[in-house]
């Protein structure tokens, strides 16, 4: 089973909101000094599940990312986890690209790679929270898209049985391949890179493709980011008074009771 996994490098979400920094144009979230960017969590789940499918059915796992040159580090991590190959799409024209543009570029790269049975993506990125790129890939490649996937219950070379989350539960779906899955964090616990994997990844070459390598024209974006604003809440929590911790606990219960919440 040949699988292509799309990944995005993001600012580490395990930081306090007050550390969040924007670039000079207020259009990108930047990693604060000393905090290394990470692979988007849902994308790591997608990669982990792809590696498990490869362990069961054989084949190749190729990791694909659109980002700036620093994303090579995250692609090396994906290789260290066990991916067979990694490709970086990097071109200044994609600096502030919208979901449609990113999705179409990734789809063009997948076409260029050629052979695949399955495309796996994270359900959304933890920085932009847009959750659209996977669907633009699917539409461009005319693949059925299923998301958010919480489990792959059965897998055969030509079809999968997956659990897709819906409000209040999940659906069990039989999916004919080729298809695209949007993966949610319930699905697995991603592995850590091994020492040997890290050494091999260090030596691996990550080709970089630009817009002209993909044979597509730059599109006029339908959605344009005007600006980002860091939300500094003007109202802090109303603190409950009391002469002791126990008194404050009682006062909290009374307050919530007055609000009709307990």
């Amino acid at each position, binding site marked *: 089973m040949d699988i292509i996994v799309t990944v995005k490098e993001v600012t580490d*979400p*395990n930081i*306090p*909101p007050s550390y*969040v920094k924007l670039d000079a144009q207020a259009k990108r*979230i930047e990693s604060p000094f000393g905090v290394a960017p990470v692979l988007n*969590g849902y994308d790591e789940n997608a990669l982990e599940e792809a590696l498990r499918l490869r362990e069961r059915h054989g084949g190749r796992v190729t990791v694909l990312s659109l980002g700036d040159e620093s994303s090579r580090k995250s692609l090396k991590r994906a290789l260290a986890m066990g991916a067979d190959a990694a490709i970086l799409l990097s071109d200044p024209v994609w600096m502030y690209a*919208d*979901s449609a543009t990113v999705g179409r570029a990734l789809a063009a790269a997948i076409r260029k790679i050629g052979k695949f049975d399955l495309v796996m993506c994270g359900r959304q990125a*933890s*920085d*932009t*929270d*847009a*959750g*659209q790129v996977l*669907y*633009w890939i*699917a*539409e461009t490649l005319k693949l059925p898209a299923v*998301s*958010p996937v919480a489990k792959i219950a059965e897998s055969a070379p030509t079809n999968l049985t997956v659990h897709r989350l*819906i409000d*209040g*539960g*999940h*659906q*069990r*779906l*039989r*999916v*004919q391949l080729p*298809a695209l899955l949007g993966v949610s*964090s*319930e699905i697995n616990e991603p592995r850590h890179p091994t020492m040997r994997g890290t050494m091999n990844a260090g030596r691996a070459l990550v080709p970089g493709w630009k817009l002209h390598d993909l044979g597509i024209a730059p599109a006029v974006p*339908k*959605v*344009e980011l*005007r*600006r*980002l*604003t*860091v*939300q500094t*809440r003007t109202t*802090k*929590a109303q*603190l*409950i008074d009391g002469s*002791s*911790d*126990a008194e*404050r*606990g009682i006062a*909290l*219960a009374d307050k*919530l*009771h007055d609000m009709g*919440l*307990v």
Partner: protein
Amino acid sequence: MAGILIVGDLAAGQPGSEFLELAGAGAALAQATGEPLIGALIARDSAAVGEDCLPPMQRLYLIRDPELRHYGAASFVAAARAALGASSPSIALFAHTLETRDWVPQLAAVLDAGLVMDCVALSLDGDALIATKPVYGGSVWGEFAIRGALRLATLRPGVFTPATPGNKPEVMQLTVEPIAANAVNMIDEVAAAASGGINLKNAKVVVSGGRGIGGAKNWHYIEGAASALNAAVGCSRPVADSGWVPSAYTVGLSGSSVTPDLYIAVGISGAVQHLAGISAARTVVAINSDADAEIFARADLGVVGDYKEVLPAFVKRVEQLKS
């Protein structure tokens, strides 16, 4: 023809509560553009539209098809396309739900239309629809300009002021084009198994513990408070990573997003990772011994103190108030 189209679900004869919020947001755009407000409801069963539940609008399209009983992206995209085809709107609005976040982007991609999801504010600027949405777990807001003949947005529930129902629009029935054999087939639907008695994702009250709890041996404080409040139990990521509780309890980017009326965060510092999962909680209470913890910037109510003293007194008082 042009118009502002709002698209919702109809179950047991009633539109979802978000439909009135869509109508509120849609009416403001309709007034600004001079275009009519048009509704479309996707019927999930065979019940007729109830009396006096519809907001003021010029026309309502009712889309019925047995395929729409269970959620499937292909049939919902087909249903929306029927309403879009009948009304040719310039803007279409949807509520942001687990289902719409799957099928509305597919609709956008197939129509090559601009879409922004999970919006908390909308306005117009010339030919652009300006949509504001929280990104990065809600600690940053992004302002986007959407352009094109058709502009799409999903709206975060509970943010926009709902319209008042009580109007009888002209109702027109629409049918859905049969969907060609699909590569995705549903076997069945399974209701979520409740963890600890109450399903975290749908819980009205959630009590969550963080690293500040100090260890698995202290977790009974959280369980005790949850059981007194009839609440679901949650945790922040470090707690699950340390193995104090199962990872299914995790609230945040690496776990569940919750939408309770009351969320009580105990010993949780408030990383972006966690705040992303509680952005839709209505009232957030933080109990933390560190007065500088970031969680107090998100919380509505806070107690600075030792949870081992605060929680038992709180639980005892809640039980007195209940009896």
